[in-house]
């Protein structure tokens, strides 16, 4: 079981869903805060869902306020970076570039992609945490090779 958890985690890294920052977070976890990473993830997804919603609304309005969108995305990028969600972060960067270029269509496309990555990551992490909890706390602290 533990090995399975470790493998899952490893694959997340290998596939580029997560980066070193995630490892940093794991290092912060200890006996006093055994579920820190999971808590942070939950918080991240909750907050980013809100941001996604805002962006969705802004895009739906059709008035492409690039500055506003860029600022939303900046926030999004910040939190994604902090948690180590590298694919999501990459989409954020792309989105911002389109914003700066004033490319509405590019923004829309990228945003769809971003939402996809975001939800994929969420599912994967949820799965991972679930397993990790089952496997025992020690597992989560282990770094993937």
């Amino acid at each position: 079981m533990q090995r399975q958890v470790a493998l899952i985690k490893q694959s997340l890294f290998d596939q580029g869903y997560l980066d070193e920052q995630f490892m940093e977070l794991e290092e912060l976890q200890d006996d006093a805060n055994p579920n820190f990473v999971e808590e942070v993830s939950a918080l991240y997804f909750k907050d980013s869902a809100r941001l996604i919603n805002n962006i969705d609304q802004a895009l739906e309005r059709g008035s492409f306020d690039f500055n506003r969108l860029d600022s939303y995305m900046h926030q999004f990028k910040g939190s994604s970076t902090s948690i180590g969600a590298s694919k999501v972060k990459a989409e954020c960067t792309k989105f911002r570039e389109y914003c700066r270029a004033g490319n509405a269509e590019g923004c829309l496309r990228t945003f769809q992609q971003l939402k996809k990555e975001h939800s994929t990551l969420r599912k994967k992490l949820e799965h991972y945490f679930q397993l990790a909890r089952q496997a025992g706390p020690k597992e989560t602290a282990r770094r993937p090779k």
Partner: protein
Amino acid sequence: MINPGSNSDPFPAGLRVLVVDDDPTCLMILERMLMTCLYRVTKCNRAELALSLLRKNKHGFDIVISDVHMPDMDGFKLLEHVGLEMDLPVIMMSADDSKSVVLKGVTHGAVDYLIKPVRIEALKNIWQHVVRKKRNEWNVSEHSGGSIEDTGGDRDRQQPREDADNNSSSVNEGNWRSSSYRKRKEEEVDDQGDDKEDTSSLKKPRVVWSVELHQQFVAAVNQLGVDKAVPKKILEMMNLPGLTRENVASHLQKYRIYLRRLGGVSQHQGNMNHSFMNGQDPNFGPLSSLNGFDLQALAVAGQLPAQSLAQLQAAGLGRSSLIKPGMSSSPLVDQRSIFNFENPKIRFGDGHGQAINNGNKQMSLLHGVPTGMEPKQFAGSSYMRVQQQITGVRPGQNVQSSGLMLPVADHLPRGGPSMLPSLGQQQPMFSTSVSRRSDLTGAVRNSIPETNNRVLPATHSVFNNFPADLPQNNFPLASAPGISIPVSASYQEEVNSSDAKGGSSAATAGFGNPSYDIFNDFPQQQQHNSKLNDWDMRNIGLVHSHQDTAAASAGFSTSEAYSSSSMQRKRRETDATVVTAHGQNQQPPSRSLNHLNHVFMDGGSVRVKSERVAETVTCPPATTLFHEQYHQEDLMSALLKQEGIPSVDNEFDFDGYSIDNIPV
């Protein structure tokens, strides 16, 4: 897990860190990391809240870490505020690593800039900034004769040097001292080597730029010419033993920044000032308040960050220009005002006078109510009303305050300084707030709410007092008229409630923020301002902080006693106007600000601004403990913000100060 104790150095542990970031994920992560470093963490997701926290606990934190992009306040503004008011080291952070932003951090005085994602290793060493700052301050204060803290071992080492320095009392020695001091410092550093532990007890000795001191400074600068003023010459002119060239230099830097800021505003206000100034001290009000605030804010820090000062001044000046009819002198005024702020808190009164006076000379610096300003400028804005009232009141009262405010004097004969100690503070605040408020128009209001809220509480009390005596009204309130108006608007609501309370309690009857009440009274009287200044400042400060709590009300009660009568009347008027205005303003940000704004509008708002001033521009509603001085600033900024003073890009809140909106 990282073992924080690995370095076995006890010093960093327990470092009190305040981390500000609107992103909850980052905030949580940072908190965890900092706790792992054994620091004492306080997290905050709103800049204004952070400012109020800081103001409440002036010495409750050692270092601040803040994000750059935040919805309610620009991180850099927060940085400036903190630098001015509390003089704490601030670390900026952002996912944005573009050079321009990093540079901005540097120029605004951030001690470091971290790129997200922040790693714990980067956080482990933040204590170095605290130590460094303390050492620098200590060194400076030593020479300046300011509050030199006892830093144990350091002291011993410094002692001999200090003695040597003391021998040279002439200001001219400043330079010499500075250089020799530096040398010694270096020696000391070598000697002390890794005496970080010793410095852990470093207290930050700060040169307290009292209103008088600041006025002298401003006078000297004006004499030399802003562009040509160099620390050495200023030092010579001031001829104060114990003041080092470094002190002057850093103060000058802040002042310049302040002026610059005001410069931006002034344009905006320039027009306004004219109208105001006609009256009493229109200039004074807005500018003064602004300036006052800025300075105060700056002063608070003990050393106004050059930038902030400049900004303040600029803002103040900017405003004053608006206010003052002939604002040509606004720049000067700003300078003054800025400097006035320097004497944080108290000086404001003086500061204002100067600032405002510059333009008007008349500016009865706010004595509390930027009478001059308001009416004219804010045509239509409620503030105006308040101000008028205030100004009206002031003239008589201002007598005292004028001392501080010195509408004209560059130096602002601080006759009032003594008088206004409290006022001074207020005034500065207003000035700044005023400047900020330049737009006073609705925009300001909005902005004000943020700051005002904070300030209001304090101001309330102050205002209450005025009613009669405040000759001094130095308060920036008067100057803040511009600002106050916006604020008042917000305050109105509150004020109204407070009105109910009756004169005495101008305090927040309904508000919760005692400060509001004050405002209510304020508008009516400029006196309030002055009055408030004295004692209100204190109250206000207190009030504000409490805004959220009953404590504020307590604060008010005291204030209430004062002003009730005069203020009420005025307030009502303003309230009415303010209310309407305020309605529009409803600025969200600050919780209290909104209230304050209302109150503020009356006049109280003005005060609030001053308090806010500390927050400068960003409408830091945060209950500013700064009281007096800052509040005004805050108010101003809040007001300005509300007004949405577009033109001004001040850091001060007053940016949004659109005087036009000020309901008169």
